[in-house]
């Protein structure tokens, strides 16, 4: 209960002031007059003053106010930095442990306050989980979190206490006081800060990796790598290397350099060229100097979305035919295709009836130049009915196989000189083709056929265009290359209605993956009949473009021809649970099968396999915790061709890139907002805002009844009159 005094509330302020002034003037005049008294001067004065005061009391009628109620503690918000950066080691523990310990201390220190403990996760303030979870957030955006803290805390707090190491994303390190105040809420809210650490660990790290432009396939890209050295570590010259993590092969070195670290900072410019479009994983690594306490931030694994301006395609044909014409015409009609074509127009046995080369518009087939120097610059290669031995391609087949394994695309189109007929059986290229090739069987036959669409072919988006035009019909083709059984993991979309490959029907169209690349085997030499036949013409020739759109699109991993959209639900963090979100395309029912393999290994084995029996359109697949590294996720839905997603899991990542705390920034934030900055050991120095009393009962009691004031005043004035007479005053 609290007690207070007040005057009667039925008087206006003017009357009250007037009465007080009148009383004061009366007492003053009385004092002056009393000087003239001959005797009993004090009696005159005291009786007069008493009379004035009692009359004043009768006018003002003072009251006593007793209030009963409860005291409400002030609303305080504690924001604990929830960034993964706080998992950096600090002594035997981590900054995170220190921050959680500080939050416990704050609970104790502000015991009487209404305390809301939140966690700063990227730019959002969320209630701190109990028990606290291992953080995943990369950023510490205090500015965004403060802007929304009132709604999260359930009201405007009296103050905010930030527990952090100070290496905040926002407000930034370079912000001046004004920007800092605005960035820290800017609403006059005092922000206290608790600095969980003040010393930098001895650490060399890759602070930042920047690119001057977007990554475009085949075009040089400048990488700027910023390397920092802190905590008194002597770094000197540090080697830097950039590698690409590919599937089925060792990491490929793209560039290397040396960072000469002076003033704790060095910048290295490295030029790289990424030949393959799509999601590529780059490893940027420095050699850890002796004494480096945080080796986890010496290696970054960064995904690069490599686009392509145009699809650069090499089309090589062993003889000009209507099929070659149709493919060339279709490729040339597509502005997004940069076509490099070489057709064998004259073989060694042809007689052009002239010995004068200047009468011929023929150039030598630059096979060596194409398949050595220029090969990596192509996104895909189409080999159409070309004899590998006759045209000296055989010697380059190992390089062509490696090209596919490192991300290139290959289509082999049938004909008398394709597949086994062209000397490819038993060659290095065989290992990247989706079908086996026999060296002993007849390389082709001349039977008419209408290919049979397999179950996979009916489900595969790659053939959706053809199905849209023809349903399951196809025109009659004459003859087919002899293809063996499909390789493990390859898929047959069309099969021969009569010929067999072992126990199974012979593949006519098959797709396969080899390392980072994809390949297609098409055992026909007359796909132009998809346009030039009674069936094809009736559809206006659209089926031809639809087939090649699909084949080339699938080869280049165009999402339109994948069976599913695959993405991570959150960036992968090494050691933490990782989830894949798989969105199946309409019309692709079946079990979701996921296989995860490491990138950068020569013979990768699945590290995770999952099977999800769900018919939902979007399926979430829990991969469990993964180690640091690059991964390829192959997702197959039912019998459709697999969709691949390459991703990286980092242990330190962006959050650990700069291990230096920034206590000065926390101190500045507190200073400009009127708060106080303390270390964890000084939490008791933080001021406690006053509590608010919430009244439940209020009682007003008059000090004396009005009549008693008036009676007392009358008696005192009477006594004063008597005393004046006795003192000789008039």
């Amino acid at each position, binding site marked *: 209960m609290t007690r207070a005094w007040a005057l009667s509330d039925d008087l206006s302020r003017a009357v009250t002031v007037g009465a007080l002034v009148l009383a004061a003037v009366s007492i003053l005049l009385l004092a002056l007059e009393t000087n003239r008294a001959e005797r009993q001067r004090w009696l005159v004065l005291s009786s007069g003053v008493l009379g004035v005061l009692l009359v004043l009391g009768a006018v003002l009628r003072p009251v006593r106010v007793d209030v009963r109620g409860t005291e409400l503690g002030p609303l305080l918000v504690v924001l604990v930095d929830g960034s993964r950066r706080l998992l950096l080691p600090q002594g035997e523990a981590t900054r995170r442990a220190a921050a959680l310990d500080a939050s416990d201390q704050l609970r104790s220190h502000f015991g009487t306050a209404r305390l809301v403990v939140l966690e700063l996760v990227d730019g959002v303030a969320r209630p701190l989980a109990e028990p606290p979870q291992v953080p995943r957030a990369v950023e510490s955006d205090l500015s965004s979190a403060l802007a929304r803290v009132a709604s999260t805390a359930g009201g405007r707090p009296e103050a905010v206490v930030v527990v952090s190491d100070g290496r905040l994303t926002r407000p930034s390190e370079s912000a001046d006081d004004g920007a800092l105040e605005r960035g820290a809420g800017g609403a006059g809210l005092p922000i206290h800060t608790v600095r969980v650490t003040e010393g930098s660990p001895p650490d060399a790290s890759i602070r930042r990796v920047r690119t001057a432009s977007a990554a475009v396939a085949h075009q040089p890209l400048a990488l700027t790598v910023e390397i920092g050295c802190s905590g008194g570590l002597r770094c000197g010259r540090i080697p830097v290397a950039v590698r690409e993590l590919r599937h089925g092969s060792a990491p490929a070195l793209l560039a290397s350099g040396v960072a000469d670290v002076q003033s704790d900072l060095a910048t290295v410019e490295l030029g790289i060229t990424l030949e393959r479009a799509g999601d590529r994983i780059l490893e940027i690594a420095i050699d850890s100097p002796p004494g480096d306490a945080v080796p986890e931030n010496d290696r970054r694994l960064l995904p690069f979305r490599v686009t392509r301006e145009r699809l650069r395609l090499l089309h090589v044909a062993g003889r000009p035919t209507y099929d*070659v014409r149709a493919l060339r015409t279709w490729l040339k009609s597509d502005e997004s295709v940069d076509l490099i074509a070489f057709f064998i127009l004259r073989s060694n046995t042809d007689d052009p009836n002239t010995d004068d080369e*200047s009468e011929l*518009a023929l150039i030598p087939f630059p096979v060596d130049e194409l398949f050595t120097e220029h090969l990596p610059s192509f996104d895909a290669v189409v080999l159409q009915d070309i004899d590998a031995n006759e045209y000296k391609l055989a010697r380059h087949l190992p390089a062509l196989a490696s090209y596919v394994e490192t991300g290139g695309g290959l289509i082999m189109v049938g004909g*008398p000189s394709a597949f086994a007929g062209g000397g490819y059986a038993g060659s290095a290229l065989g290992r990247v083709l989706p079908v086996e090739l026999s060296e002993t069987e007849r390389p*082709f036959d001349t039977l008419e056929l209408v290919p049979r669409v397999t179950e996979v072919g009916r489900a595969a988006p790659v053939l959706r265009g053809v199905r849209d035009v023809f349903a399951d019909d196809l025109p009659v083709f004459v003859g087919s290359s002899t293809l063996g059984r499909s390789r493990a993991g390859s898929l047959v979309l069309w099969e021969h209605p009569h010929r067999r490959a072992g126990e199974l029907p012979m593949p006519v169209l098959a797709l396969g993956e080899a390392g980072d690349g994809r390949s297609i085997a098409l055992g026909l030499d007359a796909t132009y009949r998809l346009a030039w036949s*009674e069936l094809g013409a009736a559809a206006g020739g659209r089926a031809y473009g639809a087939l090649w759109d699909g084949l080339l699109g699938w080869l280049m991993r165009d999402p339109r021809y994948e069976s599913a959209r695959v993405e991570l639900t959150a960036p992968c963090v090494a050691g933490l649970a990782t989830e894949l979100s798989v969105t199946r395309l309409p019309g692709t029912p079946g079990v979701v099968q996921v296989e995860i393999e490491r990138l950068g290994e020569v013979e990768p084995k699945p590290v995770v396999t999952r099977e999800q029996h769900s018919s939902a359109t979007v399926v979430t697949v829990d991969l469990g915790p993964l180690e640091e590294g690059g991964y390829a996720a192959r997702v197959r839905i039912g019998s459709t061709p697999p969709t691949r997603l390459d991703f990286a899991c980092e242990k330190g990542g962006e959050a650990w890139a700069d291990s230096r705390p920034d206590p000065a920034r926390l101190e500045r934030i507190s200073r400009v907002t009127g708060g106080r900055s303390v270390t964890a050991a000084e939490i008791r120095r933080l001021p406690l805002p006053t509590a608010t009393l919430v009244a439940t009962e209020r009682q007003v009691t008059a000090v004396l009844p009005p009549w008693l004031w008036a009676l007392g005043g009358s008696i005192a004035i009477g006594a004063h009159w008597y005393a004046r007479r006795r003192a000789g005053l008039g």
Partner: protein
Amino acid sequence: MSAGLLIRRRHALGLFAALGLGSQRASGFGQAGAFSVRLLATGGKLPAPPRSSGAERWAYELVRRTSAPARLAPERVSADAPKLLEEPFALWAGSGDMPPLSRPELRGLEQFLKLGGLLVVDDLDPAGGGFGKAARRELARVLPASPPVRLDASHVLFKSYYIIDRPVGRVLGPSHLDAIVRGKSAQVLFLSHDLLGALARARGGVWSLEVEPGGARQRELAIRLAVNIAMYVLCSDYKDDQVHAPFLMRRRARRGP
């Protein structure tokens, strides 16, 4: 390849040509995509012997001189038959005026050209010029928005296999070619040179018709034009690719004006 093999192939070609059989290269597989001179019959009319043998010789010369497979036995297709839409090439040869095409014939030709086919119009009587005029008239009904234009001397047709300076047939004819060009492709070529006449050959192995003004060189140039047309059909503008440009420019420079 060895010289021995070359001789054997030549002998084989001669033998098959004499027997009127199909292509040797592909022997079935590959046949579907082989070049074939299909003689277009309109109103039931076709070139009469001896010129009709020119189609065989055209295919024969293509196989002998280039790597392209071809079907030696010529086919005959009607403008209103679905068969016209099975391959992208047809030769419309004739002489004199002709009656207007029927509606199905017009529709057939329109569909053929819309699919991207290439039609060669060969006036076998260039002096009269009646067939060429009639063909232009009828094709104007098929493609009213695409009038014939003169092909530039730098057109890929003149360098698709041989580097040739001008079109030549049984007669010297005009030094240029007219064509209906759609998109980037010449879809109809108008010849006023009696190309079939230059290629026509009797069973005994002698040329059926004399060339005018004459000479083996003119016949050779006519054959080269035929080969170039076939290569243009099979490879479209392949020789316009940037990779060929420096070679061809050097060769033209060496040949002189």
